């Protein structure tokens, strides 16, 4: 799971005590007029002050500047401290607009990081006069910036924990619903059988057939839940996974279904990716099995599996010419226990695609669908290539 700067509340968000305490502390112990926690948002060409102390107006209220006014961007770009004793004479920043407009002459900035190690901003102290920065001052500021990184780590931990709690609540609700439902049906069947027994001559046999189908479905549902827990609950074990070999295995396992569907399945060469073997297998198996299941009765089914080499990710497409999905339902298919069809048209538990998306997120990737009702669907699994 990864979060954007906005989701983390690091840009376009009110000040927070955890960060304000650290700017106050830095300004105090280093005896500087101004201290900032500046988040560098390259995408929007600006730096945002998550916390500031001592800035003049209008900057104190605006809490952001364009990058033309940013010393901190260099701290982030180089992931290294920037030490400026007299800005107008410093080759990197002498033309920076912060000198005339914010009165920045001396500057000391050190990076802070996301838990992944990516630098996202600088903790800096600023003065209006030339100043020599002592080694112990740099060390002090470094220690404060580690605390900024820790405050961010804490925010992320809170977000992850909130999300997991919500997921757990949804799961429990859906679980109790979906297991109670067949029990209700069986209770009614037993009532009906009782009245049949009291006054025979009816269709007890058909009630028994219904009862067997209900318990069968209930069993499949529990199996589905077990596979969800098995897949998600384990520690992910990252390794090189040969998707071509894996797909061949899956097609072997699904050979009966492929024959039954009369499907033509074509697989282009697939890459070796870094991922959890069991989890990735669950995704490919589900996507291919879905393509076979949601076919149009009279149109010969074609399923195509291929990989697209993108700059930072592999995109694995599983495409079919089956029944497709109406635009308004495309997101719904990924909801846990969410289904688009009644069970005697296309049976299912509504677990498969929710599980697949979760696996994609476990791999810092995603799973999406492009589809048109009546024409077919293309599910795309995106897996980041990661550092080589």
């Amino acid at each position: 799971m990864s979060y954007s700067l906005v989701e983390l509340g690091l840009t376009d968000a009110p000040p927070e005590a955890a960060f304000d305490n650290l700017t106050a502390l830095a300004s105090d112990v280093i005896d500087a007029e101004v201290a900032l926690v500046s988040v560098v948002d390259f995408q929007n060409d600006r730096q945002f002050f998550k916390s500031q102390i001592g800035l003049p107006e209008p900057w104190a209220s605006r809490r952001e500047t364009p990058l033309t006014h940013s010393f901190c961007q260099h701290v982030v770009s180089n992931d290294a401290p920037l030490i400026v004793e007299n800005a107008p004479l410093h080759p990197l920043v002498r033309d920076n607009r912060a000198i005339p407009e914010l009165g920045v002459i001396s500057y000391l900035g050190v990076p802070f990081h996301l838990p992944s190690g990516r630098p996202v901003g600088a903790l800096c102290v600023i003065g209006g006069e030339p100043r020599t920065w002592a080694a112990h001052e740099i060390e002090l500021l470094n220690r404060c910036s580690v605390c900024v990184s820790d405050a961010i780590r804490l925010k992320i931990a809170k977000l992850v924990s909130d999300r997991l709690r919500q997921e757990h609540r949804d799961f429990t609700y859906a679980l109790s619903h979906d297991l109670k439902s067949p029990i209700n049906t069986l209770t009614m069947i037993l009532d009906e059988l009782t009245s049949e027994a009291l006054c025979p001559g009816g269709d007890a046999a058909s009630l028994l057939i219904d009862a067997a189908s209900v318990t069968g479905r209930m069993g499949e549902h529990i199996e589905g839940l077990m596979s969800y827990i098995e897949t998600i609950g384990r520690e992910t074990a990252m390794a090189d996974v040969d998707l071509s070999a894996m797909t061949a295995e899956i097609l072997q396992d699904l050979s009966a279904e492929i024959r039954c569907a009369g499907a033509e399945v074509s697989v282009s060469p697939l890459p070796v990716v870094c991922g959890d073997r069991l989890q990735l297998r669950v995704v490919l198996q589900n996507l291919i099995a879905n393509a076979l299941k949601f076919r149009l009765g009279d149109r010969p089914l074609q399923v195509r599996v291929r990989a697209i080499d993108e700059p930072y990710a592999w995109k694995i497409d599983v495409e079919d010419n089956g029944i497709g999905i109406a635009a308004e339902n495309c997101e719904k298919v990924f909801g846990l226990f969410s289904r688009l069809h009644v069970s005697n048209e296309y049976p299912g538990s509504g677990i498969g695609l929710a599980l697949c998306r979760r696996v994609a997120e476990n791999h810092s990737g995603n799973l999406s669908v492009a589809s048109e009702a009546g024409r077919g669907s293309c599910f795309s699994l995106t897996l980041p290539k990661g550092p080589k």
Partner: protein
Amino acid sequence: MNELTPIPTAMLIDDESIDQKLYRRVMERSGLVGNVIGFVYPDEALEFLKQDDRPTIDVIFLDINMPRMSGFEFLEEAEKQLGPDFARMVVVMLTTSLAGQDLERARGFDVVKEYFNKPLSQHHIAETAEMLAQLKS
């Protein structure tokens, strides 16, 4: 002929066809229900309700968790597209009594006069018939 029964026309919206079959048996045995019109997809029930020449629906027995459109989404759409009088009353059928949030949401609709926990029994049909009689008088 059906005008003589306490619930002349009932609509059933539930995605489980086995459940529908059982509801029909319970209703038939109660002798309180005339016509039963069943749908497994709420969006198809909505299309049916939009027809001008359809019969008056006295009671809709409505499931909540269904494919494509939930029972609540059905109620919202029906009120929006057809006004509050698309049926004399709606009975919401809850799968579990544990879902307090569903109960709260069901109470938010004026047309929902009754809700009960599944499974549906003779007793529920009799209660519904009584409530419908009160609404009519």
